[in-house]
């Protein structure tokens, strides 16, 4: 009986030691890494995506200069709907480029008179810019412009009450955009004072 108890204690002690060892190793290792999954490296795939985005933006420029807003919007649709590298891994550049493309798409949809499509584009773009950045501020600003355009459309249609509510909505969105941008500017100045990456 005593032998069995001794063996049981030994087994328990061994299991505890293994669990503690794994926990200790993980804790120390994660504390060194900050515990976060490392973001994707800047590699060929990421550069290919950025190159494609750049080409599509310039293609949209040319189409706009030709007065072909629909083709310009199609270029942005291709950018936001295309494949993205490093799925499942943090890659802030990709999200920010996609968010900015949605903002431009919303502006192009507005030029085409498609207010609802513009509103959908800003909503989707905000999903890629969840934190306060210039990208999110720009998207909220475009959201406000979309609401402003919608209010004008409603007013033209004689729906003055709805137009008034939409104007209020637009004002709130534009105020929010200003607040985000102020916050970003303040943090940008603090970061520059602290020696972080400077604008090029």
């Amino acid at each position, binding site marked *: 009986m005593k032998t069995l108890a*001794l063996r049981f204690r*030994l087994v328990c002690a061994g299991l505890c030691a293994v669990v503690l060892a794994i926990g200790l190793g993980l804790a120390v290792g994660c504390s060194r890494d900050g515990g976060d999954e490392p973001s994707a490296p*800047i590699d060929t795939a990421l550069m290919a995506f950025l190159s494609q985005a750049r080409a599509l933006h310039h293609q949209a420029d040319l189409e706009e200069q030709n007065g072909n807003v629909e083709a310009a919007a199609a270029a942005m649709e291709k950018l936001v709907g295309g494949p993205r590298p490093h799925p499942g891994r943090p890659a802030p550049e990709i999200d*920010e480029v996609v968010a900015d493309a949605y903002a431009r798409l919303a502006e192009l949809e507005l030029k085409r008179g498609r207010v609802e499509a513009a509103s959908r584009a800003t909503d989707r773009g905000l999903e890629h810019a969840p934190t306060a950045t*210039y990208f999110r501020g720009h998207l909220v600003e475009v959201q406000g412009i979309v609401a402003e355009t919608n209010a004008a459309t409603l007013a033209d249609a004689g729906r003055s009450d709805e137009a008034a509510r939409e104007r209020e909505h637009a004002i709130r969105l534009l105020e929010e955009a200003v607040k985000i941008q102020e916050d970003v500017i303040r943090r940008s100045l603090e*970061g520059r004072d602290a020696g972080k*990456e400077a604008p090029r």
Partner: protein
Amino acid sequence: MAERDDDIPETEEELAAARRLRDALEDPSIDDPDADLARALAAAYAPSTLEDVEHARLVDDVASPEELASAAALARALDAEPLTVALRAAWSPRPLDEADHHALVARAVGAAPRSGLGSVPGSARRARVVRVAFGAVAGAVALAASVLVWVDGRAPHEVPIARARSTQPLFDEPFRAGDASARIDRIAMARASDFRDNRFAGWGVR
């Protein structure tokens, strides 16, 4: 080593020793160590028949059953005598048997009275527990180290590479409408620089 010179005449002592050996070889009753060796060799090589008288004397020398019993009793008595045991152990020690060994170890370390598990098995179990405990601790430390190395991942000599991060620091003012292409230009150029650095790092140039 000097070689023997046959021209040197024998000394008186040598001649006397030669005479003694010759006499001893001719007369078996003479006691002489050199002659004894020669006699033993001759008997081994060509044994001769014993004379009746000699044979009878040898038979008389064989111990009787009573003498053998007395000798055995004496041997037992000597075996039980501590002085005899001590002298024998000092002169020609024999290995301890297992039970005696464990009894001595248990008495020396005083384990048996405290453990209450019996003298010999208790000490063996304690030794096993100590070994297992040391093994478990060493294994746990090794496991923690391996997990740490696995989590840490990067080799110490590995050059840090640029990773994806927010492009926010590239801009110092809110975005203006119509500048989308200029923004992607700036982002692409900045990251192209990082990409080149990563390639050079991969080639071991940096």
